[in-house]
């Protein structure tokens, strides 16, 4: 309400300011003669004559030169004066400004309201960050920002970093998660959970590939806690990605042997054992697991807990979900070069060449006008071994 009063006040003030000349106009016209063009010229030429006189007195120009200049300006002055006499004295008649008054009164509120209602968000209050941080409510993002502020001031609060690590992972900010885990490890020492978390963050950063760094981290976790199922799973997955099928198989089977038969990650293990040439586990048929048969009625408390466990075991599944949501997001907001690059790389890592190729071509179409984007996409395609069906051959684009 306050906003509307202010807007009305502002509109009225502008309209009033513009109306004043119209209302006073007649008085001015009747009262004073205004400077017409030629009258202005005459004034300027008179000033110029004075200026020449001053220059001559100061000795800046010679008397003779001054005379020439005076003669020249004088000629112009006479010409201007002659023109002025021939001019009709304008503006002395009283005029009515009905139409102008109407325009000035109507246009500001009309245009103002129409455009503003179309473009503005009158219902939305200001939201300065400090005020929001003072009353964050249940907004996870705000709570995280608060924690970040706290950590920026107390960067040696290891427990704080430790808390933030998993939250970053859930918010899909693996880069920040990596930093948080590293800080926590540095400040309060390594633990299996922190090292595994760091490994997960590194893996997510490289689109699901277990890099050298990530592997080292998982192995360090196993040194501290040899039974950590998550870390063991990732080490096995790393072996699988490295193409060492027999070793991977042995590792997966070992995990399965040491897990309870009804553990939620059994179906996933079974898949990987089968993939590496072993016999699928009898205890867990794949259709029990990944939620194919789940009722659409909404998850129960148990389901949530199971999913939590499952997601700990099944990064691959989660990555799938992330990739799919990325693809969906790019469909809505295609103008995101990083997104396309990530999508192409993700599909390539997941081994889905067709989808990767498709994403590549979509990306190329989207950035057909952007030399930089196109060359980045093509470079990536070469890196992951894809050939694009490029429509136009202008790929030698300079950065």
């Amino acid at each position, binding site marked *: 309400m306050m906003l509307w009063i202010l807007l009305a006040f502002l509109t009225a003030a*502008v309209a009033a300011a513009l109306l004043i000349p119209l209302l006073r*106009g007649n008085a001015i016209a009747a009262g004073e003669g205004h400077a*017409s063009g030629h009258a202005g*010229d005459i*004034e300027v030429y008179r000033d110029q004559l004075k200026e020449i006189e001053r220059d001559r007195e100061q000795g800046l120009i010679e008397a003779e030169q001054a005379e020439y200049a005076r003669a020249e300006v004088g000629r112009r002055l006479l010409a201007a004066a002659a023109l002025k006499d021939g001019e009709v004295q304008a503006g002395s008649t009283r005029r009515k*400004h009905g139409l102008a008054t109407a325009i000035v009164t109507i246009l500001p509120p009309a245009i103002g309201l129409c455009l503003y209602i179309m473009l503005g968000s009158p219902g939305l209050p200001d939201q300065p960050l400090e005020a929001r941080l003072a009353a964050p409510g249940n907004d996870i993002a705000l709570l995280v920002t608060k924690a970040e502020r706290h950590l920026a001031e107390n960067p040696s609060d290891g427990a704080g970093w430790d808390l933030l690590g998993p939250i970053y992972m859930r918010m899909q900010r693996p880069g920040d998660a990596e930093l948080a885990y590293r800080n926590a490890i540095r400040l309060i020492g390594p633990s299996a959970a922190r090292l595994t978390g760091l490994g997960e963050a590194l893996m997510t950063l490289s689109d699901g590939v277990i890099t050298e760094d990530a592997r080292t981290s998982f192995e360090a976790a196993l040194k501290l806690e040899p039974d950590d199922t998550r870390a063991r799973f990732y080490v096995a997955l790393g072996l699988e990605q490295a193409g060492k099928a027999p070793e991977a198989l042995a590792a997966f089977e070992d995990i399965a042997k040491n897990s309870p038969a009804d553990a939620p990650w059994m179906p996933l293990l079974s898949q990987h054992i089968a993939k590496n040439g072993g016999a699928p586990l009898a205890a867990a048929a794949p259709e029990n697991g990944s939620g194919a048969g789940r009722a659409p009625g909404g998850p129960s408390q148990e389901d949530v807990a199971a999913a939590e466990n499952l997601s700990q075991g099944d990064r691959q599944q989660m990555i799938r979900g992330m990739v799919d949501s990325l693809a969906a997001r790019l469909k809505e907001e295609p103008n995101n070069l990083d997104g396309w690059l990530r999508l192409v790389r993700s599909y390539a890592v997941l081994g889905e060449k067709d989808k990767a190729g498709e994403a590549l071509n979509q990306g190329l179409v989207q950035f057909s006008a952007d030399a930089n984007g196109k060359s980045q996409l093509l470079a990536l395609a070469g890196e992951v071994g894809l050939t694009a069906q490029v429509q136009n051959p202008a790929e030698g684009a300079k950065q």
Partner: protein
Amino acid sequence: MIVELGHYALVLALATALIVSILPMIGARRGDVALMTLGTTGSIALFLLVALSFGALTWAYVVSDFSVNNVWENSHSMMPLIYKYSGVWGNHEGSMMLWLLILTLFSALVAVFGRNLPETLKANVLGVQAWIASAFLFFILLTSNPFLRLNPAPAEGQDLNPVLQDLGLAVHPPLLYLGYVGFSVCFSFAVAALIEGRIDAAWARWVRPWTLAAWTFLTAGIAMGSYWAYYELGWGGWWFWDPVENASFMPWLAGTALLHSALVMEKREALKIWTVLLAIMTFSLSLLGTFLVRSGVLTSVHSFATDPTRGIFILCILALFIGGAFSLFAWRAPMLKAGGLFAPISREGGLVLNNLILTVATATVLTGTLYPLVLETLTGEKISVGAPFFNMTFGLLMLPLLIAVPFGPMLAWKRGDLLGALQRIYVFAALALAAGFVFAYLKGGGPILSIFGLALGFWGMFGAIADLWYRGNFGKLKFSVAFRRLAGLPRSAFGTAIAHFGLGVTVLGIFAATTFGTETVVDMKQGATVNAGGYQVTFDGMKDAAGPNYTEQRAHFTVREGGAVISDVWSSKRLYTARRMPTTEAGILTMALSQLYVSLGDPIDGGGMVVRIWWKPFILCIWGGALVMMFGGFVSLSDRRLRVGAPNRKAKAVKAAKPVMEPAE
């Protein structure tokens, strides 16, 4: 509520701009004072509304209101406060707001200080200004609205582009825009004169200071941009003939021509039509620059986000204003009265030569900038027109201009005496040549062409001194008398000499830095020492550090000369955490006017870094010269007197025995 109030103020500004673009011009045609006065109050109201709107946006940035999409995209709550302010225009939407703010500010200044302008001229000028404001208001509201909101609001912003997190952002764009937009006033005056079909004496009085102010700001803006690119991008160069740089350089060249032709017009009432044309051309080039940079046609650090609708919108604005103004010129210019006559060898003639060369130079740069774009559009072929093209064509064109500059102020108005000027100035020419040789000798020699280049720089500087020397008539009169004469000279005469001196300094810097500079690229392990430009640079090692919103690896270097330590340099690679974007921060050691520039490359296997070291002798002269030019501009601007160029007598009247006295400015 403040944000929404700002948004509404912007919408209301559009309504006001539309009123001011129509009613006062009708008033001017009918001789209706009331309607003409509406232009004055309307322009002031327009400025206040835009300022209110800009203030609201700035407030949203300062308090980190991430419910504003523009703030969320370009700010971060942990950013230092100064970048929160400068970040307002560190993005497409905000920079258009700054453009508009300066445009309306200039309109308001014309409205407030234009009391002595003829009413009709003032109404028309303010009307044309309001057309431009309306077009940009439509553009901002419909395609680049900075007030669009996000609900729910994110908790943290996406940070400002790290390259822009620099003091340069607080200085370079406002100066550049003051220049670009300042030329809009000249444009509006030109179009107003065409609409009226005549040019008043007051017209000339007004156009010159505006041109001078715009030119001064543009000079500073370009120089600051060049220096910023030099130290921030880590490439060690100061000008790349990049299309975006050219986009700002073309209005400067045309503006310099306009500045000189406006001079002729103010003092001698000659070159009227040509000045009108130049005013239109200069602002058209400013608009073209805005279009090239903002539409995404060019990819660079300036083209924040690309959006095809924006490109088309700007193209329409461009077609409307440039096409409209040139059509109007073709139609009305023949009705304007041509001005006074003058002999080819005269001050006017010199300024015409200046104008010719500068216009051709502008055309050259324009060709080099647009040709690759046109070719790509037509044939799909990609070519790049680089430094060799510009150095050959533009450099060659500048040569006669630089030689001619010192002669200009020596010639008399209307009829000049070239031989007389030569007789007086040849001493200074010889001095300049000698200085060039001495300079090269001290630096250990150089190619003969560079020596002439150095001499050219000295020539510019000495020529400016010679100008003042002869105006004071130091050779002939007693020192105290001559000094009094010098002190009595109008400030605009000093402005001219200072600006021409600055030009010489810049030329000297360009030739010295390119002739005697060295570039060293080496792999350096910790403890390694390399020779660069006569200094021994030792790489002492790397260290991790953190700033408010970035982490960095800093490399420490010790610089020795002949074994003695003279200083140390930090050079670093930064990673801005919010955008995970790396930047390089070059380490620059300034020694008098020269700089040692150390930039880090990639790490090499087995520890160590690729390090690039440039020795840039007298590089600061390049920007220092521009600052001197700017200072000259301000000195000249502070001279508010009326200016009359007193013509010289006919040649036959000159008595050989009598020394020829120079007319005052």
